[in-house]
């Protein structure tokens, strides 16, 4: 083996021996994604607040809180089941971890179905992207944009939960992958904590 080979080998080992910045690479990547996604959602919510503040006839179409309360409960509970899944994965209990991850996915599906049901009710009442029977047409565009973006995240999360869960059970992924997925899922929950008051609760029909 030549000196060059030895140098290259040593260099390569130095690069891959530990994660960058003493922080696991996958976790750093998902946190950077979360920070970037925070900007996206924050921009949407601030734009929504700007429109709501600057529009006198802003609609208040929500007669009650039952549906949104149920959706909030389902999503918060799914964060808890995700935590249980991660704890089981860390403890090396694959079967239990897989079960918790699948329960989380099922709760995500329940949330998405409740969301779609609510959308269909609003569409039945005449709400579209550009008009609605209650006031400015901007409401439909902003409501469907923000809740649609969030619903897209939930749907992507459910697909990821199932895919990662199955691969974890099959031995291709490990507990670190469950943790990374969990961070994404909790982030979706955190976003919902801001969507509920701004988009729903401030627009209740009193």
């Amino acid at each position, binding site marked *: 083996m030549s000196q060059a080979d030895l140098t290259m080998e040593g260099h390569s080992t130095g690069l891959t021996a530990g994660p960058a910045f003493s922080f696991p690479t996958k976790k750093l990547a998902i946190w950077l994604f979360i920070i970037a996604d925070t*900007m996206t959602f924050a921009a949407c919510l601030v734009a929504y607040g700007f429109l709501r503040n600057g529009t006198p006839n802003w609609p208040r179409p929500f007669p009650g809180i039952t549906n949104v309360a149920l959706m909030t409960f389902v999503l918060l509970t799914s964060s808890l089941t995700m935590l249980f899944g991660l704890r089981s994965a860390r403890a090396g209990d694959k079967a239990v971890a897989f079960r918790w991850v699948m329960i989380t996915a099922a709760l995500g599906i329940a949330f998405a179905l409740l969301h779609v049901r609510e959308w269909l009710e609003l569409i039945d009442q005449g709400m579209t992207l550009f008009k609605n029977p209650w006031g400015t047409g901007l409401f439909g565009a902003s409501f469907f944009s923000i809740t649609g973006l969030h619903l897209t995240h939930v749907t992507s999360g459910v697909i990821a939960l199932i895919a990662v869960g199955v691969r974890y059970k099959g031995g291709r992924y490990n507990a670190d992958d469950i943790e990374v997925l969990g961070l994404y899922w909790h982030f979706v929950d955190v976003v919902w904590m801001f969507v509920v008051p701004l988009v729903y609760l401030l627009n209740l029909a009193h």
Partner: protein
Amino acid sequence: MTTAEDHKSNGIGKDLAIYVCLLVLAGLQFVIAYQKIDASQMFTRMLVVAMVEAGLAAMFFMHLWAEKRGFLIFVAVFATFVLLTLQFGWTDSFRMVSGAPFSK
């Protein structure tokens, strides 16, 4: 029960406590929604509760509290900077309410 099992059950207890706190705070937002106060007060109160909720979820559900202190500071500073810089347009939205969005 072994030490590891003790640690695990304590962790689950903490998770459940945070979960209950989040449910209570979410419930508080719904209570605020039915208070007879003006929209700006309602907005402020709800936003404060949402920020506490988000803080709890980020610190404990997302385990930010247990990460390296340098990383925690990085996330906090970055997030605060982004959220603050997004606030520049509010004064203009009040100008729209006054009916003169493009004059004065």
